[in-house]
């Protein structure tokens, strides 16, 4: 696994029935412990200026796809910090060959942190104070599509 949150391995266009229907990339959890899916607060993806809302992104863990509303109530499925999650995005034709700038925001709650800090979590903005063991909310990476 790469130190960067957005992994270079796993970034590619996705094909269904012979047609390119979108793209995917992988992210690792920049936290020292795993989280249950309901702790996740997915945010916005920006690719070369094009905005994809959280509703347009499907998270996958262990090969299973989870819709946003499923994740919000799932406190039994666990995301281990040593295994990247796969994020799939629908986009007919996929991404063009060449470089792409990805910016993606997400964060997660912690039961042992003061609730006042949890209520203001915003996946698309950094926390008031940066703590390395919680990672950055917003991560960026420039990667190639072949």
């Amino acid at each position, binding site marked *: 696994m790469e130190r960067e949150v957005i992994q270079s391995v796993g970034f590619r266009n996705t094909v269904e029935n012979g047609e390119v229907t979108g793209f995917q990339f992988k992210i690792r959890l920049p936290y*020292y412990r795993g989280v*249950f899916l*309901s702790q996740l607060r997915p945010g916005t993806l920006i690719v070369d200026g094009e905005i994809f809302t959280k509703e347009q992104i499907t998270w996958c863990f262990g090969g299973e796809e989870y819709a946003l509303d499923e994740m*919000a109530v799932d406190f039994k499925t*666990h995301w*281990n910090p040593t295994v990247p999650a796969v994020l799939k995005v629908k986009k007919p034709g996929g991404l063009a060959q060449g470089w792409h700038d990805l910016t993606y925001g997400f964060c997660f709650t912690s039961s042992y942190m*003061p*609730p006042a800090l949890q209520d203001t979590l915003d996946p698309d903005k950094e926390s008031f104070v940066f703590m*390395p*063991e919680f990672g950055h909310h917003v991560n960026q990476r420039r990667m190639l599509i072949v």
Partner: protein
Amino acid sequence: MYTYDRKGPKRGVALYSYSAEFGLTKTLEDCFEDVHDMGAHGIEILANTHIENYPYPTDAWVENWFRLCDKYEVVPVEYGHWIDSHVLGGRELTTEESIEMLCRDLRLAHRLGFTVLRTKMPVINAALEPVENWREIIKGALPLAEKLGLKMCPEIHTPSNLNGKMVREYVEFIEETGTKNFGLNIDFSVFRSKFGEGEWKDPAFTPNVPEDIVPLLPYVYCCHAKFIHMSDDFEETTIPYPEIVKLLQENGWDGYLLSEYEGADKYDPGYEVGQTLRKQHIMLKNLIGD
């Protein structure tokens, strides 16, 4: 299964210390080998971090766990876990749901050979006070903990004080119930008496003196041997370790001191926390005399 029979304070490592490296440049086996290099025999894991497929590891993973313990002469000492009652954004888990979550961890800790759990309570405020129903949650899990021979221990960590309300309430609970399956993990951050120039100090924090731990020792089943600054001649410059270890020995305390390094510099590129841990283990080895 490997056993370590030494009495008194013993050396161990909390694998939390490897947070910045685990899964990137260190495997679980690397961590075990590093601990073995230090001559330490105790280990603390974080269930949600170090157990593959937590909370449902495969039998093959569990088999490998015991292989690692034997190979590197390591005792599974403390199982770090969380009662995540705030896990849903919209509502709190009910007491029953929290008990169910806690019991799942008790069973898994037992399956992996642990005897003590660092049970992290969900908090309700900046003073880190636990949820109001913590007594009901713990009581609901006590029968299983007793059956499996496990001790659930909240960690007492700065800015909490050993003479404060939180510890008093935990001790009252232990005395009222008479339980041997709930106790304390004392994190030595409570003894930090020195802060360098410009270092942040929580205004709510008052350091304890080492003697403050003595009346609690009957309930202390594990300690986090927190360290902040190890000097190049292997002394901790902010926490009075010689006094603390001496008190533990004089009072016949038997248990593990689990090194835990929380410094944010461990996230610096290239930082090897193992070398920082080794500095502390030179000190602990000399103080304990093992």
